[in-house]
């Protein structure tokens, strides 16, 4: 079967960030500013992406606004035929600069919030940022671009999910994304403080369902459930090397945000290879593509064409074997490691006793 074209390119254009979120999706080993691709290199890659059939570009970081050439990058991406999304904390964005980004062709602005309550939001971000984000939301609505509010949820804020939805309603986005933390990198370090209880998860699903009904046609809600509580794994990235590719700030191409943790992998770089070659030929993208790598029970499971065996990084992080069935799957022989983690979370579990004070968190640093 020929390799399908990738549909989206996630470009981590920098790992620098004024925030220090305790669940940041960046790797523990971040790329420094000095190693980042230049404007010209990024624009060349965006052109290659368009030629390869990529439809969507997701500009992210770190904080993409930390790149002074963001306007040129957007212009280059549009010239390459890509639809341009910006995923940002909004910190450091003036009205003038926002206008310039929109003029350059920015089409969708995704603004992240940490909470509806200022103290909690700033604690998760490790820096005061909540008030500025609220101001910015009003500014965004003055421009003709799509606007999404993204809120990451976890044990510390799920109990006031209703309040979070009400905050979003007031900000007036087209879409609200409520995403449960996924446990890689920084989030895995902080898992004891972030993993929600089963009651919280069940209650949040009811809250979201009621809000969807009430807000239908006004604000679309996308809810990302926590996979630790799922029966079957998520179709991570839509399957390894199947729909998406990610470039880190230094041009290293990965099949997902976290793949760098898998030992023995070599990730090729757009400085040495074309995007087309990386996608079709490089060893990293072929490693878990398709079904040949699958163990049982995946190999004979009828869900293998839906969830592709789940997440390879999670399999490695929780079992030490990247080629194992994702342990969140209730059919996985290693599912016990997930049950073990969840058993710590109940009202009597040790982790509920840990006070959520700033001193307890592992914050991501700024790579400089």
């Amino acid at each position, binding site marked *: 079967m020929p390799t399908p074209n990738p549909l989206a390119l996630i470009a981590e254009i920098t790992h620098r960030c004024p925030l220090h979120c305790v669940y940041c999706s960046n790797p523990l080993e971040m790329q420094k500013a000095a190693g980042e691709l230049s404007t010209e290199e990024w624009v060349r890659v965006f052109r290659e992406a*368009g030629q390869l059939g990529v439809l969507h570009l997701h500009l992210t970081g770190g904080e993409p606004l930390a790149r002074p050439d963001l306007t040129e990058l957007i212009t280059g991406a549009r010239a390459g*035929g890509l639809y341009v999304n910006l995923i940002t904390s909004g910190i450091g964005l003036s009205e003038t600069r926002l206008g310039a980004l929109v003029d350059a062709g920015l089409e969708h602005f*995704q603004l992240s919030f940490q909470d509806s309550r200022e103290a909690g939001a700033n604690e998760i971000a490790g820096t005061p940022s909540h008030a500025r984000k609220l101001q910015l939301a009003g500014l965004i609505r003055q421009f003709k*671009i*799509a606007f999404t509010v993204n809120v990451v949820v976890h044990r510390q804020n799920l109990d006031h999910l209703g309040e979070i939805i009400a905050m979003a309603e007031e900000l007036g986005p*087209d879409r609200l994304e409520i995403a449960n933390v996924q446990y890689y990198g920084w989030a895995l370090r902080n898992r004891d403080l972030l993993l929600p209880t089963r009651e919280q998860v069940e209650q949040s699903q009811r809250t979201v369902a009621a809000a969807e009904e009430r807000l*239908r046609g006004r604000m*679309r809600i996308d809810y990302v459930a926590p996979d630790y509580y799922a029966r079957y794994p998520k179709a991570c990235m839509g399957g390894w090397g199947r729909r998406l590719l990610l470039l880190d700030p230094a041009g290293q191409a990965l099949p997902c945000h976290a793949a760098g943790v898998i030992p023995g992998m070599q990730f090729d770089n757009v400085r040495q290879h074309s995007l087309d070659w990386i996608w079709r030929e490089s060893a990293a993208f072929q490693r878990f593509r398709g079904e040949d790598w699958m163990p049982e029970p995946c190999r004979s499971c009828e869900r293998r064409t839906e969830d592709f065996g789940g997440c390879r990084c999670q399999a490695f992080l929780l079992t030490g074997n990247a080629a194992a069935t994702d342990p969140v799957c209730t059919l996985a022989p290693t599912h016990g490691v997930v049950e073990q983690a969840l058993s710590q979370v109940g009202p009597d579990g040790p982790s509920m006793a840990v006070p959520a004070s700033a001193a307890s968190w592992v914050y991501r640093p700024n790579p400089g």
Partner: protein
Amino acid sequence: MPGPDKNSKPRLARGCRWGEANGAERMLMFPEGALRLQGTGREILERCDGQRSTQQIVEELQAQYKSGDSGRILQEVHDFLENLQQKRVVDY
């Protein structure tokens, strides 16, 4: 659920546009995805220009598909617009 008002003027929502992927077929691009549209769906959406009213769109399609059931065309236009409005692809 009520359909769009017949006088409303549907248009593509913010952040949604037609795009040509590498000279391939025309697609509707929106923040989280893209739609490859054919047939009536495409006929309807290409008329969502903020100028034509829903009623005009229905009439134009009824004229174009003279042999079709005009009641069904009306229903089809309403259902289609309603669905895309909830996806935040169309506004009216």
